[in-house]
């Protein structure tokens, strides 16, 4: 009975999930990655203070500036185009990453918990993360950078759907 899928003659592909995350995620990811680069720069300044200025320092600063600029312009936009999610009454389907891409599918019937998290930086941008866990230690599905209102709606929907079906396959 389950053979129909594998025996299907038509070649298929998984399409990406339908919904984009909030546009505010782009500045959020930029700021978060920027904080990391601030740390790198600070370390270089410490190095400079303890030492005479020489070619190595200049090269270090230039390399940092170039890498940081490239990372901060490319990564958030690329990531915004990749990060997507979709929920049907039966499954939660997400896509995340940028350089590497990962798609996760969790059947609603196997959901154990639905959590939301908002870090301090995320609160500033009005964003919320949703985490859907299953009984597998490898199973959690994360949706990052949702508009808080959307996140609330999604959680309510998933909770209702989860109660409608049973069985967590443990």
């Amino acid at each position, binding site marked *: 009975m389950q053979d129909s899928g594998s025996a299907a003659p038509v070649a298929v592909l998984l399409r990406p999930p339908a919904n984009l995350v909030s546009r505010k995620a782009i500045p959020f990811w930029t700021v978060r990655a920027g904080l990391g680069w601030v740390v790198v720069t600070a370390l270089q300044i410490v190095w400079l203070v303890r030492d005479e200025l020489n070619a190595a320092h200049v090269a270090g600063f230039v390399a940092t500036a170039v890498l940081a600029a490239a990372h901060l312009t490319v990564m958030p936009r690329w990531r915004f185009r990749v990060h997507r999610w979709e929920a049907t009454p039966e499954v939660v389907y997400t896509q995340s990453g940028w350089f590497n891409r990962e*798609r996760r599918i*969790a*059947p609603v019937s196997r959901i154990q918990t639905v959590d939301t998290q908002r870090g301090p930086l995320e609160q500033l941008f009005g964003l919320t993360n949703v985490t859907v866990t299953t009984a597998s*230690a490898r199973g959690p599905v994360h949706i990052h950078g949702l508009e808080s209102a959307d996140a609330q709606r999604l959680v309510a929907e998933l909770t209702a759907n989860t109660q409608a079906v049973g069985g967590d396959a443990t």
Partner: protein
Amino acid sequence: MTSTDSAASVAEEPAWCRLSPLMLAVHPVQEVIRLLPVLVGVLFIGRNDNGPLWSLIGLGVAVGLGLVRWLTTTYRVTPDQVLVRRGLLRRQVLTVPRDRVRTVDLTSHILQRVLGLSRVVIGTGRSDRGDQGVTLDALSTAEASRLREELLHRGRPSVEAGSVLEGVPEAGGPVGGAPVAGVAEAGGSKKGAPTVGGSQSGVPGRGLSAAGAREAVRLDGDEVEVAALDPAWIRFGPFTLAGLATIGVLAGAMGQVFNETRLNPRDIGALRAVYDQLNAVAVPLAVLEVTLGAVALVALLSTIGYVLAFWNFRLTRHREGTLHVTRGLLTTRSTTIEHRRVAGVEISEPLLLRLVRGARLIAIATGLRVGRGAERGGSLLLPPSPVAEVQRVAGEVYGEPSVVTCALKPHGPAARRRRYTRALAAAALVTAAFLLLWRLAGWPAWTWEAALALFPIGLLLAADRYRSLGHNLLGGNLVVRQGSLVRRRHVLSTDGVIGLIVHESFFQRRAGVATFTATTAAGKQHYEAVDIEAGEAASLADATLPGLLTPFLEPRPPA
């Protein structure tokens, strides 16, 4: 479970039980054995610094802690729950709903066996790694097996059931044995069949193979033997390399003895003779001698280890729907697994075992810890033994013999190319590093010359790694195989799959392949097919969760 509830209200609350007081005797003896080198030092060598004193204080503390543990640990089994209270300053009460008990594991090492004790570990469906489960260390063996009977064969209390059992009604019957959670069980609900938890078939939706039933030996009314150790299997012992770990432990112990007794290894005649002989002969001969000696020692210790661990090995199937593994020469281990929790099986073939056509069988089940190796975690279903035997038992335990041996789809040219790229890149990287060190840091030239050997080794490994790759999905059974140094074939029921991950790294995307991962609550929690073609990943996903992914599938654009 209403009948159970009403019966429980009639029966009085079961009493809190203590661990066996005999454990108080085991604990100090264990400590004394551990401190034996120190005691030898104190008694016979007459050392007089503070080291031994501290060791003796440690012994006293250990004994005291054992006493506290005995005094503070109590447990009780009610009709619905298993409760364990423990801790002196930080009181803890562990509560396990009985319908969540998946496995019961009894272990007795040699001292415990002399005193008739067993350590009991009750496994639940929890899958976090740090979880120790519910451990009772230790109960009398009779009490322990009674507890196991009660927890896993609850439909039909055993004959020797004692006072603890009386609170548990027989009223449940075989169906009462199926927990409330069982109704919502994936296996039952998805196949549309009512869940009959304690039924003979054990695994819903997968009947036992006819072939297996024919070969099975009937032991008594309740248990059917599926497999037992054939002494001829001991020939696989030298190929398990279990001896390597033993050598480590032995070396540690010897070091401690020499340290505590202030003996110089060179003062011992035999060791000195070996040392002198090695110094006398040419270097290549000495290397050869040491290698041969090490190989012989590892083979010998591995064989001894095999006998110690797997003597009396027996795998039986109980009428109440459990699998029962007993084994061990000195330390005995007896693991009981609910058969319907077995979501799949793993056939593992380490390279050396594969050369002599041997394999091991491991259960993929919830409630078994896999983090610390299948043997210690208790999920081992068959010790290293002939492949044919492993396949027979796998088919019988899993209930679907065809998928254990079925042909697998190869992963295609991109997967092959990626195997070779990786092997050659790794070899090139190491060789380049040694070349640099030779040029810049004056390392001897033989380092990078030796590293050149990585190229042919890498090529062989890559070829074998590609040959191992394979996957298939047959009638609700996902089969994946990979690995060279340890080749593993995982057979997993799609009913146990609780999520899918399709991962594409930047380079995988360029090559048009993806890694398909099925997550599960059982075993290692995730099983994957590496580098399969993207379209194949989509159809595999669709077949694994039939019907659920229809909205997300689109026809593939012609290439």
